[in-house]
């Protein structure tokens, strides 16, 4: 091979290597800086009086004693803050017909869920603020609550927003082909099932929180933000607190888990920013665990009635389903609470070939905590519907469920193509993934052992899912609908005088290893050792502009921008080197921190080059204008989203006396395109699987009929523990792709595997 080494073959090839994260040491020594670790001069602390009722009119608030209590600095009601914060509405224009009502940081007039903030107390310590909360007397008149999503649309149900006339937030129908005729065909068997997906929530180990600091001398608001989308929040603070966008700086240091929980607009956090502005000093709010359960977005909450038709020979003819989703009393701002249902309508059955499809989605308001996008938005529901029905169909026609999948999965050589619902799909590998999975788990052996065990009265089950995943969304996801959410991201890379790289990016780190993969890409593409790359993310003042990390987009979009920026800087540096060395650029490369000949022999270290440029420019020709910094931005253009795929299986044992389910083992085969760092990807997948098992078997937000959250403690809400989780075997397929995405997926979810399990 001639010419410069390819980025994947060079000495500094880091893409694809299991490099440990550079920031692990810091976190392991307790040197992380999470929001609650921030201490600022004159900082005061917020606590909230929250509605004890699911639905109640606020008749009066008496906070006189609270105002006079020790340490109290300020007390605000909903009306007080409404004078300083403009209301927000969680609708987007591309979700036609979606309705919601204006929301205020604190309830004004009516409280619509248990936990909604009603009064804010700011005091010199959190403990004193909580003491003062006890001295606030709110007179409520309880209203009937619409709690159960199944009855929320009934005539006579309590209407949460009288202006809307009903509790319907959004509905959408998808009709493809003629499902009734397909189901009525002579050799077609129809299976039917109702699925109930309970509410669960993210339980980020670090609760939500914020420190907001306002400096009136510069009209500057600085927000320490535990979240995923700093630039989005910059716009939101600007818009609703009447501050110029450029006067708002949002900083995310270490984030103690997010999973989609911390990417939304929460009243208590907006109130904290408003209080900082009003008080002209820093205000900290850190939710306690009870507040987190009551106010962090919840997820799922679907009731689905679904049918699948399959021929005697095992060909799926179509799916017909009705999804009812309960979202709480408002659609969440700014991403809305309709995306989850929309994903279910779009993605159900997407791995399988079928001609007929009919789906109805209804999204309803109810007096519970708001529901919104949490990890793997809509995917677990969509995959459970199709693969759950498929297991029923296999049983009905007496076919092995793997064989039935083999018949119906889209062929690996059939792309590009569309799904039944019109989703553009490319470069997927369902069949390879399923085969790799059944090999990995020794499917035939497992089935034989299952039969043997059953004879001894041991009940074991093997469940499968073939799945697609929405990743790397284009502007079609949010931007088109009017949300201040960037679909593009930027990366900057700078060669410093010592020969090291400093990179910054608009994607963010919540523990996935964002900073690690940015460094790997920059080091490998440019040509320095990994330990010579420093990374900055999570600061609107110092990084390029972009969307952040969510929807499996960090590696695919932010990583691609990083790759292009590193390539651009390399070209710029080689141009300078060519002049300094009086040689053609095409004969030069950069390897291990030095400009080299193509064969790798060192000509000039990067430190020498950079120092010449920075300190001794007199040695360079006057017409050479060295630029040792490069920025590139990237967005997805050809597709609304980039789909990835995988196949997973669970082996479980059921105690038929108690109903207790033990997951014995779990396998996941994943095609995310090129794996940048298998060490990071594998444990991300395992984490997704464990959250999925949690959602399927352990986690649920239980409500009483009158809307009281019954298990809002860590002891009562069951988070998966190490002892009950299985060993999880991971394997990868890396399908070469025709598109320039470095890693098509990011590393979300895997949890959709969990639900469609048959015993």
């Amino acid at each position: 091979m001639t010419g410069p080494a390819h980025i994947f073959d060079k000495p500094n090839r880091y893409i694809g290597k299991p490099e440990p994260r550079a920031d692990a040491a810091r976190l392991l020594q307790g040197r992380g800086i999470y929001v609650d670790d921030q201490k600022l001069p004159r900082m005061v602390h917020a606590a909230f009086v929250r509605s004890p009722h699911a639905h109640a009119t606020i008749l009066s608030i008496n906070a006189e004693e609270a105002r006079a209590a020790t340490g109290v600095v300020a007390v605000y009601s909903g009306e007080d803050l409404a004078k300083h914060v403009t209301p927000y509405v969680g609708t987007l224009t591309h979700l036609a017909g979606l309705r919601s009502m204006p929301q205020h940081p604190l309830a004004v007039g009516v409280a619509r869920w248990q936990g909604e903030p009603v009064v804010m107390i700011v005091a010199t310590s959190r403990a004193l603020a909580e003491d003062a909360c006890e001295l606030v007397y709110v007179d409520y008149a309880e209203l009937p609550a619409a709690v159960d999503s199944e009855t929320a649309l009934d005539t006579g149900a309590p209407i949460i927003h009288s202006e809307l006339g009903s509790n319907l937030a959004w509905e959408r129908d998808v009709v493809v082909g003629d499902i009734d005729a397909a189901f009525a065909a002579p050799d077609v068997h129809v299976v039917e099932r109702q699925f109930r997906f309970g509410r669960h929530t993210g339980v980020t180990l670090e609760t939500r929180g914020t420190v907001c600091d306002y400096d009136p001398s510069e009209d500057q608001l600085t927000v320490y933000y535990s979240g995923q989308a700093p630039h989005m929040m910059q716009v939101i603070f600007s818009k609703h607190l009447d501050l110029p966008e450029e006067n708002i700086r949002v900083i995310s240091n270490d984030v103690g888990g997010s999973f989609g929980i911390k990417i939304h607009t929460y009243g208590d956090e907006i109130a904290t920013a408003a209080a900082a502005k009003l008080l002209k000093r820093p205000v900290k709010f850190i939710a306690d665990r009870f507040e987190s359960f009551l106010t962090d977005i919840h997820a799922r909450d679907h009731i689905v009635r679904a049918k699948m038709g399959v021929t005697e020979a095992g060909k799926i003819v179509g799916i017909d389903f009705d999804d009812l989703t309960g979202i709480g009393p408002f659609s969440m701002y700014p991403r809305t609470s309709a995306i989850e249902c929309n994903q279910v309508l779009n993605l159900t059955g997407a791995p399988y070939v079928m001609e007929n499809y009919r789906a109805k989605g209804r999204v309803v308001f109810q007096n519970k905590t708001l529901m919104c996008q949490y990890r793997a938005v809509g995917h677990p529901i969509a995959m459970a519907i199709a693969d759950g029905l498929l297991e029923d169909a296999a049983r009905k026609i007496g076919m092995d469920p793997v064989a039935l999948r083999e018949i119906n999965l889209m062929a690996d050589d059939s792309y590009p193509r569309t799904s039944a619902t019109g989703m553009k799909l490319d470069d997927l590998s369902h069949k390879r993934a399923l085969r790799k999975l059944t090999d990995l788990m020794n499917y035939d052996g497992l089935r034989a052992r299952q039969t043997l065990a059953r004879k001894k009265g041991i009940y074991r089950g093997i469940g499968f899912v073939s799945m697609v995943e929405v990743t790397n969304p284009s502007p079609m996801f949010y931007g088109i609908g009017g949300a201040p959410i960037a679909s593009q991201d930027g990366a900057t890379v700078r060669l410093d005088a010592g020969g090291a790289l400093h990179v910054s990016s608009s994607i963010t780190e919540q523990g996935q290893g964002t900073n690690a993969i940015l460094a790997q890409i920059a080091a490998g593409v440019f040509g320095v050792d990994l330990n010579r790359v420093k990374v900055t993310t999570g600061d609107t003042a110092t990084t390029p502009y972009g969307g952040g990390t969510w929807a499996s987009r960090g590696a695919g979009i932010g990583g691609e921008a990083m790759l292009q920026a590193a390539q651009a800087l390399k070209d710029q540096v080689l141009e300078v080197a060519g002049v300094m060395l009086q040689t053609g650029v095409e004969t030069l490369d950069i390897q291990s921190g030095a400009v080299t000949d193509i064969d790798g022999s060192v000509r000039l270290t990067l430190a020498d080059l950079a120092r010449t440029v920075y300190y001794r420019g007199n040695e360079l020709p006057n017409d050479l204008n060295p630029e040792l910094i490069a920025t590139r931005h990237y967005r997805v253009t050809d597709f609304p989203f980039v789909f990835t795929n995988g196949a997973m299986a669970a082996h479980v044992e059921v105690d038929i006396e108690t109903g207790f389910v033990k997951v014995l083992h779990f396998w996941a085969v994943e095609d995310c395109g090129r794996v940048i760092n298998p060490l990071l990807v594998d444990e991300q997948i395992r984490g997704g699987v464990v959250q999925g098992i949690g959602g399927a078997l352990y986690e649920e937000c239980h409500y009483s009929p009158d809307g009281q959250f019954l298990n809002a403690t860590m002891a009562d809400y069951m988070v998966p523990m190490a002892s009950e989780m299985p060993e999880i075997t991971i394997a990868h397929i890396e399908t070469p792709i025709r598109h320039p995405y470095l890693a098509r997926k990011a590393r979300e979810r895997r949890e959709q595997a969990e639900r469609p399990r048959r015993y």
Partner: protein
Amino acid sequence: MSRYIDISLRVNGEDVRATVPSRLNLVDFLREELSLTGSHVGCEHGVCGACTLTVNGDTVRGCLMLAAQADGKEITTIEGLAENGQSAQLQAAFTKHNALQCGFCTPGMLASALGYLNTGGSADRDAIRQHISGNYCRCTGYQSIVNAICDVIEETSI
């Protein structure tokens, strides 16, 4: 409104004297008064394990103990463990196996793992899983954490 109590204790090898509200819990005292922010507060009711630290050699929940109860005691937080090298092997193994993501559970997880090692725990994966079940991790699948702890035990026993 709360009573104050004088305490004197050793924290990470340094003598500390303080006057604390009687209701102040140990982890809040360490974080807010001593700025030892490596111990994290995840649930404040003794379930999640993020505030796990060492008191007189015992593994303890920092949120279930009052600062006043620490009078006369010897406390070691993650900062102390990192400084004195007691957890160096575990830290190296956690790095090697990527046994952390967001890092919020990590200081408590290390304290629990160290407790397991110090009481002669074996490289039995189920036993390790049982032992760390008082420490929630929401990011990893726990497997890498078990791998890291196993590694240290196996290396030490050679």
